[in-house]
C-alpha cells in the first residue's frame, strides 16, 4: 500500500505518469482525509467566508425618518468599514499620540511582535546554548523550562499583574518602593510589563525547540572546525547558527504569528479598552461585543491579511520550511531538476529561447 521514497527513486521502465503522485492512492487518501477536511471547512473555512462578507455590511442603527424607530437589519456598505479608518477616524490617545483606534492597535501589535520575538529569540538561543553545553542537570532545567509553557496565558497574566502591582514585588526589587512606577496604568510602562510577561512565557519554549535543533548537529562538524582553527565566535556564526536555522526559523515564525494575535495577556493584565496596550485582536473583540459586527469583521480581516503577509515573507525570505514533508521536498527538487534538464537539452539542441526574465543565454 505505502511506498517509501527510496523505492520511488528506483528506475521505472514503464511509461512516465503525468504526475509523480498519481499512483492510485488518491481515492483512499480522499476517504481518510474527508472527515478532517470537512470539520475544518465547517469550523474554519465557512466562518472565514462569513467574516469576509460581514466586513462589507454594517448594522443599521439610524432612526427611520418615517416611523421614528431605530432601523434594524444590516446595510451593504462596500469597503466603507475599511476606508472609514482613514476617512472618519475614531481617534484615541495611546502612547503614540492621537490617532485612529485601529492604527493605534496596529502599531501596538507590531511593536509587541517585533520586540517580543527579537528578545525571545536571543534569550531562547542563549538558553539552548547553555543547555547544550551542560554537563549535568539538563533534566531539571528542561522540566523548569516547561513550567512557563504549561501555565495558561491568562493565569500568567494575573500572576504578572500581581507582580507589577504599584505596591508589588517588581517595584520592590527595583528599589522603587518610595517612588513606584505605575506599571498597569495604561502607559508606556504597561507595554514594558506586557513584553516582560510574554518573553518570560515563551523564550524558554524557543530555547527548547532550538536545543532540539542543536542536538542534531554531529560532533564531527565541531571537531573539523577546531582542527581548522576556528574560534568560538566563528564556530557559532559559521556552524551552529546555519545548522539550527531550519528549526529556529520555524519556531520564530510560529512565535511571530502567535504574538500577532496576542489577546489574553494585555486583556488579563491591563484590561479592555486600554489604548496603550490594545492589540488588533482585542479591538476586533471589543467591536464584536458591541455588536458592531461589520467593523469587527473588517478589523479581523486586516489582522488576517497581516498574518498571511508575515507568514509569506517568512517562507519566501527566510526559507521557513513550515510543511516539513520530506516527500514533497523530494518531488519539488525532482521537478526543478527535470526543468533544468529540459532547459539544458533545449540549449544543446539550439532551441533556446531567451526573454527579459530568463537571463542571458550564456549563463
Amino acid at each position: 500500500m505505502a511506498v517509501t521514497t527510496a523505492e520511488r527513486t528506483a528506475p521505472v521502465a514503464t511509461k512516465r505518469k503525468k504526475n509523480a503522485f498519481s499512483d492510485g492512492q488518491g481515492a483512499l487518501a480522499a476517504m481518510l482525509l474527508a472527515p478532517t477536511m470537512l470539520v475544518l471547512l465547517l469550523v474554519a473555512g465557512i466562518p472565514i467566508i462569513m467574516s469576509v462578507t460581514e466586513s462589507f455590511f454594517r448594522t443599521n442603527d439610524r432612526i427611520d425618518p418615517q416611523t421614528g424607530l431605530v432601523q434594524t437589519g444590516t446595510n451593504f456598505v462596500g469597503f466603507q468599514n475599511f476606508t472609514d479608518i482613514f476617512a472618519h477616524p475614531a481617534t484615541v490617545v495611546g502612547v503614540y499620540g492621537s490617532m485612529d483606534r485601529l492604527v493605534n492597535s496596529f502599531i501596538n501589535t507590531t511593536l509587541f511582535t517585533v520586540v517580543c520575538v527579537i528578545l525571545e529569540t536571543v534569550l531562547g538561543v542563549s538558553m539552548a546554548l547553555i543547555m547544550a553545553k551542560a554537563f549535568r542537570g539538563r533534566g531539571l532545567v528542561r522540566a523548569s523550562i516547561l513550567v512557563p509553557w504549561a501555565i495558561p496565558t491568562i493565569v500568567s497574566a494575573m500572576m504578572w499583574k500581581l507582580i507589577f502591582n504599584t505596591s508589588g514585588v517588581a517595584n520592590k526589587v527595583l528599589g522603587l518602593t518610595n517612588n513606584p512606577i505605575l506599571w498597569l496604568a495604561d502607559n508606556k510602562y504597561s507595554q514594558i510589563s506586557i513584553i516582560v510577561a510574554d518573553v518570560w512565557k515563551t523564550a524558554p519554549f524557543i530555547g527548547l525547540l532550538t536545543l532540539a535543533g542543536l542536538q542534531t548537529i554531529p560532533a564531527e562538524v565541531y571537531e573539523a572546525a577546531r582542527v581548522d582553527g576556528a574560534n568560538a565566535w566563528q564556530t557559532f556564526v559559521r556552524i551552529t547558527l546555519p545548522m539550527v536555522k531550519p528549526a529556529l526559523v520555524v519556531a520564530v515564525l510560529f512565535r511571530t504569528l502567535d504574538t500577532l494575535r496576542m489577546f489574553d495577556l494585555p486583556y488579563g493584565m491591563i484590561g479592555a479598552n486600554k489604548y496603550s496596550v490594545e492589540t488588533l485582536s482585542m479591538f476586533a473583540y471589543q467591536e464584536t461585543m458591541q455588536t458592531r459586527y461589520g467593523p469587527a469583521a473588517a478589523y479581523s480581516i486586516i489582522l488576517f491579511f497581516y498574518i498571511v503577509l508575515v507568514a509569506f515573507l517568512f517562507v519566501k525570505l527566510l526559507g521557513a520550511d513550515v510543511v516539513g514533508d520530506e516527500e514533497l521536498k523530494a518531488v519539488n527538487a525532482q521537478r526543478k531538476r527535470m526543468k533544468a534538464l529540459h532547459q539544458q537539452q533545449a540549449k544543446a539542441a539550439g532551441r533556446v529561447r531567451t526573454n527579459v526574465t530568463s537571463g542571458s543565454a550564456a549563463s
Partner: protein
Amino acid sequence: MTQVATPVIAHLTPEELGALNKPHRDISWWLGRIASAAGMALIVVYCLMPFYWMVISAFRLPTMGQSTDYWPSPASFENFVGVFSPQNNFLRAIVNSLVVSVTTTVLTLVFGIIGAYALARLRFAAKGLVLSIIIGCSMFPGVTLLVPLFKLFTGTYSWFPNWLNQYQAAIIPSLSFGLPLCVWNLTAFFRQLPVELEQAAMVDGCTPGQAFRKIILPLAAPGVFTTAILTFIAVWNEFMIALTFLQSKDMKTATVALSQFTGNLGYNIPYGSIMAAGVITTIPLLILVLFFQRRIVAGLTAGGVK
C-alpha cells in the same frame, strides 16, 4: 609511517597512557564548568521565580494578598478554601473546563488519527495543498472566527438556535485550532514508524485496514497519547473563545472564572484567591508535563506547532 609510530607506542607504559587519556582539567576547564552551572541555575531561576511568587501568594492570608514578603507569614490555606466559595463557583468552572477540553480532545483524535495516517503514508496529488490548509488553519487569528460565530450563536439569525452558554459553542471553535495541532503532531509520529511494519503485516495476510488497526495503532499509542495531552493543554489554556461563548456564571471555564473573581470588598482585587485558583488550574498540567516530559518535548519539536 607505521614503522615510526610503533616503537613510540611501545615505549609508553600503561601509567603514561592513563595519564594521557585522563581528561585535561586546567583552570579554563573549571571556569567553563562553573559558567555552565551558573547559566543553568540562571535559567531555572528565570523560569521558576514568577511561578514561585504565584504559589507563595496563594499561601498567604486572604487579607495579605498584595504582601511583598518573600515567604508567606503566616502560611494559610484560606485562599484555597475561598476559591471554592459559592460566589466564585470555581468547582463548576473546573468541571466546565474538563467537559470542553476532553470533548474537544476526543473529537480531534477521532477525526485526526485517520487523516494524519493518510498524510504520513499515502501519496496523492493534493498533499501539499492539504498540509498547507491544515497548517494555515493553525495560524490564522481566532478573532476572525469569533466575529461571525458570535453573531451566529447569539441567535441573530432566525434559522440558527441560540447557542450562547452551551458547551458546543466553545467546543466547535476550539476544533479550529485543536484539529490542526492534533493532525500535525500525529502525522509526525506516524512518519517515524517504518513502512516495513505494514508491509510485513500485509505479507502475513492483513488487509491495509487490519495492518493499521492491529500493528500501527498500538505502536503509535505513545504518539497518540502525547498528542492528546498537547491538545488537552491547548484547549484547557484557551481563553478568548471561552470568554466569548460561555458567559453565564454556571458555564464559565476555569481560565475565565479566575480572571473574573471579585472580592468581598467590591473593587479590591482578591489576588490571594486568584493565585490559588491559578495554582489549582496549573498543577494538574504541571504534573502531566513533568511526568511525560520526554514525550512532550519530542511531540513539541516534531510538531513544531504551538
